[in-house]
């Protein structure tokens, strides 16, 4: 060790020799010494070779040969461990190298770019460093035409440093597309491939880029045609996969129609092939994820994919890693399998979720795949958060099927792991899980009972207090589903657990969805007469207040309609009726809505009045008189002439009760 350090020291010392020729020889010897020798690299860094090399590099007096050799050594050092990269970045190698790009010497520029490439593709390098100096990107663009090497390195740098929409925009604004497009037909495979990768990064979830790409011509061909040619089966898998990604992103951005031949007959089949057993595990993961993304919004693509090359069955294989064979035969293989097992599973779940998001037949096909439900159930409790999330997404997609809710979901007691998952999970998992729970709490779902017994109410109530609107919606939505046709005990529990205060806070929620579902919950709570009377007797005052507030507020037709429906329900109660009858303000509002221009609101308000004048034993006479006094009869008369048949019918029924 001592000895090694001594020789390393010697290399560094030679960099300080007064004779430039000796220094050059020293750098060249250093270059030969560090190649492939990580220990030597570390030593030299510790001994301070980097600042000296950077000094020599930036020194105006250095010969261009010396400067090039310095960059080559730095590049070699960067090829070592991540720690090496960190040290280099800490020594401000990036600005020094970027500065070097201004030099006219092509060999030197290529060396700088090669070194920059190595530094930037490392995950430890902050990508922002590329964007700090605004002159860098335009200069890199101008260097693209210098040689195939500069093209290769610069596109690699772009691909790795484009991590956000802002980066995409910067590169786009500096003409990345026009500059890189011609490289797609370069003679060098490397250059073609890097250009393609660059486009896949630029187009990802970027409408502006995608829309531009679709109109670009390369040597007379549309870019999409160039990409399609790159999907050819005899080309390297990497190229097929990346080209498919480009087309997928362009399609998702709306630049290519989902029924375009290049998507249906080329991109989709290519991605399905990427999922096949013959492909490498990494390729299968990428293929499945890209395919899931491609067809997510389009049921027709989902249908096509579901019959392509037995995709649904093919995906079942993703769960067989590490395989039993690999464990016995080959420790290296086992390691490899283990590393990718999570990725494979989550990718498969994602793809299943996408496949089954709309079509009932596909969902059936998925649940009938070998051990599928068991796999989802165990996926829900896996250690990897990615797998849990994907599994719950898959479950959510399948839970849209009434048939599956009634059968496989119940048979496999999926609610158990789902409930467990809801206990403490990050928000994104919670959103999916609670959304799935909403479906499981639908009244026809056999899982509803056991879930209720597991004490889900508290959990859902706590969700309604979340900062995330999506979670609040799901929480209240689930409660709403739960309250539908529920017995008194459940309703009481919901009201108790939620608390009126929280209920009214939700009624003033800025999110309309939350408000709608809360009103829905109220409506479900206020059904069947005894329930109405009981709840109104305890919370009548607050509910009436809230209703008044909403009817007076600036809300959508749907919200107002829902609110009027609540009033109608209240009017259906025995004792609860009085809360309306004694509230002239509310009665005036009902009157107003009966004369509203929107038929839906008219209908809901008429419903309410109709309930109030309903002729049953007791005090209906008194109410009828009061309503007549307030002029409701005249309005009802008018409404019997209404154009809307429902409204007309409803008004006539109400009038009949008067006559009785």
């Amino acid at each position, binding site marked *: 060790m001592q000895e090694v350090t001594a020789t390393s020291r010697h290399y560094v010392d030679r960099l300080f020799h007064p004779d430039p020729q000796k220094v050059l020889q020293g750098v060249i010897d250093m270059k030969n010494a560090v190649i492939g020798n990580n220990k030597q690299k570390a030593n030299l860094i510790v001994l301070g070779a980097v600042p000296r090399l950077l000094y020599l590099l930036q020194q105006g007096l250095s010969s261009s040969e010396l400067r090039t050799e310095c960059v080559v050594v730095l590049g070699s050092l960067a090829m070592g461990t991540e720690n090496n990269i960190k040290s280099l970045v800490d020594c401000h190698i990036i600005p020094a190298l970027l500065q070097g790009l201004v030099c006219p010497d092509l060999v030197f520029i290529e060396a700088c770019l090669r070194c920059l490439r190595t530094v930037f593709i490392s995950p430890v390098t902050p990508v922002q460093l590329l964007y700090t100096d605004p002159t860098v990107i335009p200069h890199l663009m101008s260097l693209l035409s210098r040689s195939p090497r500069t093209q290769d390195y610069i596109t690699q740098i772009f691909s790795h440093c484009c991590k956000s929409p802002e980066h995409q925009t910067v590169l786009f604004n500096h003409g990345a597309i026009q500059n890189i497009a011609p490289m797609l037909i370069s003679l060098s495979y490397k250059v073609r491939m890097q250009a393609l990768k660059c486009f896949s990064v630029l187009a990802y979830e970027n409408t502006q880029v995608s829309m531009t790409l679709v109109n670009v011509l390369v040597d007379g061909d549309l870019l999409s045609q160039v990409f399609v040619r790159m999907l*050819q089966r*005899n080309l390297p898998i990497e190229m097929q996969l990346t080209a498919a990604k480009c087309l997928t992103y362009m399609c998702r951005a709306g630049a290519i129609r989902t029924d375009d031949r290049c998507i*249906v007959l080329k991109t*989709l*089949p290519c991605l399905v092939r990427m999922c096949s057993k013959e492909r490498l595990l990494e390729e299968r993961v990428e293929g499945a994820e890209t395919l899931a993304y491609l067809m997510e919004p389009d049921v027709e693509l989902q249908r*096509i994919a579901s*019959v*392509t090359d*037995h995709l649904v069955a*093919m995906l079942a294989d993703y769960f067989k890693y590490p395989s039993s064979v690999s464990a016995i035969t080959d420790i290296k293989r086992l390691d490899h399998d283990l590393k990718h097992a999570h990725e494979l599973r989550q990718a498969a779940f994602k793809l299943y979720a996408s496949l089954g998001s709309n079509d009932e037949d596909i969902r059936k096909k998925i649940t009938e795949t070998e051990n599928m439900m068991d796999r989802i159930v165990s996926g829900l409790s896996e250690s990897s958060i990615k797998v849990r999330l994907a599994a719950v997404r898959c479950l959510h997609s399948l839970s849209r099927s009434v048939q599956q809710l009634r059968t496989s979901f119940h048979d496999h007691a999926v609610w158990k792991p789902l409930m467990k998952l809801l206990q403490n999970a990050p928000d994104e998992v919670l959103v999916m899980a609670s959304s799935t729970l909403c479906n499981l709490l639908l009244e026809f779902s056999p899982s509803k009972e056991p879930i209720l017994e597991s004490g889900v109410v508290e959990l859902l109530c706590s969700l309604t207090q979340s900062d995330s609107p999506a979670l609040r919606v799901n929480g209240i939505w689930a409660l709403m589903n739960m309250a539908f046709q529920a017995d008194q005990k459940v309703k009481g529990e919901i009201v108790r657990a939620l608390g009126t205060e929280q209920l009214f806070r939700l009624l003033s929620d800025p999110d309309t969805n939350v408000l709608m579902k809360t009103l829905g919950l109220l409506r479900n709570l206020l059904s069947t007469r005894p329930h109405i009377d009981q709840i109104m007797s305890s919370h009548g005052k607050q509910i009436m207040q809230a209703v008044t507030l909403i009817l007076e507020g600036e809300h959508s037709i749907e919200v107002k309609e829902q609110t009027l429906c609540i009033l109608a329900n209240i009017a259906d109660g025995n004792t609860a009726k009085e809360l309306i009858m004694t509230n002239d303000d509310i009665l005036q509002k009902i009157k107003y809505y009966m004369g509203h221009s929107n038929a839906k609101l008219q209908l809901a308000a008429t419903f309410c009045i109709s309930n109030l004048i309903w002729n049953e034993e007791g005090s209906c006479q008194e109410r009828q008189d009061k309503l007549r006094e307030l002029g409701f009869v005249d309005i009802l008369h008018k409404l019997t002439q209404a154009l809307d048949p429902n409204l007309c019918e409803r008004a006539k029924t109400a009038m009949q009760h008067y006559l009785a």
Partner: protein
Amino acid sequence: MQSKGNNYSKSDLHSFLGNHHSRNAVIQNQLSQGKEGGICCEDRPNIYCHGKNHKDAASVRATHPIPAACGIYYFEVKIVSKGRDGYMGIGLSAQGVNMNRLPGWDKHSYGYHGDDGHSFCSSGTGQPYGPTFTTGDVIGCCVNLINNTCFYTKNGISLGVAFTDLPPNLYPTVGLQTPGEIVDANFGQQPFVFDIEDYMSEWRAKIHGMIARFPIGERLGEWQAVLQNMVSTYLVHHGYCATATAFARATETLIQEDQTSIKNRQRIQKLVLAGRVGEAIEATQQLYPGLLEHNSNLLFMLKCRQFVEMVNGTDSEVRCFSVRSPKSQDSYPGSPSLSPRHGATNPHLHSAGADSPTCSNGVTPPNKNKSHNKYPGVSSASSSSSSSPSSVNYSESNSTDSTKSQPHSGTSNQETRCVASDSEMEIEAEHYTNGVAENSSTRIMNGTYKHQEILQAEDGSLGNGVAEDSCASRQLCGGNQAATERMIQFGRELQGLNEQLCREYGKNATHKKMLQDAFSLLAYSDPWNCPVGQQLDPMQRENICSALNSAILESQNLPKQPPLMLAVGQATECVQLMARVRSGSCSFARVDSFLH
């Protein structure tokens, strides 16, 4: 529009479908009749059905089975109408399978049915396979003969493997059952909906990769030596003396033949290629006494060529009369040296296999190419068909076809060269002749050169003659009266030689034809633009040149064919053998795609 009931004519059925199409095979095929009822056809290439229940089912199938050697086979069926219930089956069946049933129900029968989307693998019960199909859908069926599997496509989308372990010799089959079902089959007459080319390109790449990555393991060093030897012997064979020496020095290998011998051969070859056949004969007789005397066929061929070159005005016997000696015919456009062109040649080598897929014309059974195959005599060589390798050089140039396609004939002659020389040599080995040489060479035998001197002195002049004066108008024997007289005299001698050979060995049709063709040149005012003018093309010298070269090598107990060519021939033969044993991959393992 459709004929009713059972009365349909068989000939109609045969007329309605076109060719099997696959990339490598174009074989006539049609769907043939099923049973007496049910199926009939219209003017359109449709199949129409009248049946009611499963007893009314009937299938039609192609007239020819799928050839194994095509590698990948594909056809598509468009559902014109699903009829009453759409009970349609598309698939494959072996010969002798009951045609009154839908494909898939019986043994050696495979089908994909439209009503339920199930696949039927020789069984009455189907397996869930793909979607159902109905009016307007296009169903494709692809048989992969490399791994013996089959997959279907629907509207251009692959549905995945349906059957594995398929037996050979299956026929494309379509079965219908209920009234009004109409389908339309496409064997490649129209473009396919599914991109079958892309699928085939994948398999081609796969098989090429398999060959390119064939593991050689421990024998890496051995291979190196073998390869070096191949290159070296190839260079030596063709007389690239300096290159061979440099190569031997660089790779530290030995050259079997000594330098002088190589140079001599090179010298003789150059003479032949320059059209100076007389000098070549002379040099051969000097350097390799007895060679031509023992090889009267070769000598005759050389003499015939010499005559042609006299007409051309290039042979030294007539050139000496001419003031402006070099002739335009000397020039070899492009490369003046004898460089074999593998890329172009090998497709022809391939085509020798009768069941090889590219086989566009009958050509020759492959075993005739074998280098060890000894022909009993001259007769066999001449009796074989005109395109047979053993019928050698001039047959090619005589055919009027080849004159029409000049660029091709040049290369095909090159290609037959190495093969052709075999049989000739074999033939000669059994026959004995003498006296021939003296007879014809008396005039030429005036030289007193020493071998080395010939080489040095004339190399330069050979080179000079080539490029010069290539657009000068061409005249018989260079337009010189004396030369023409000499040529006519030479012609008489040649005629005499032929008669003498006939007396000794009996009639020889090849010789006769050769002679006739050569003499025919004189019948035209412009021999270069006449039906037999092809002979004057300098390219025609290559065959005789290589025949002579091989004969010399053999007389020195050296291989008459370089091992490299032997290996190429062997590989080609191997691929043909694969075709014969029905290995589908052979169609994607072409030798020529590995020769650049």
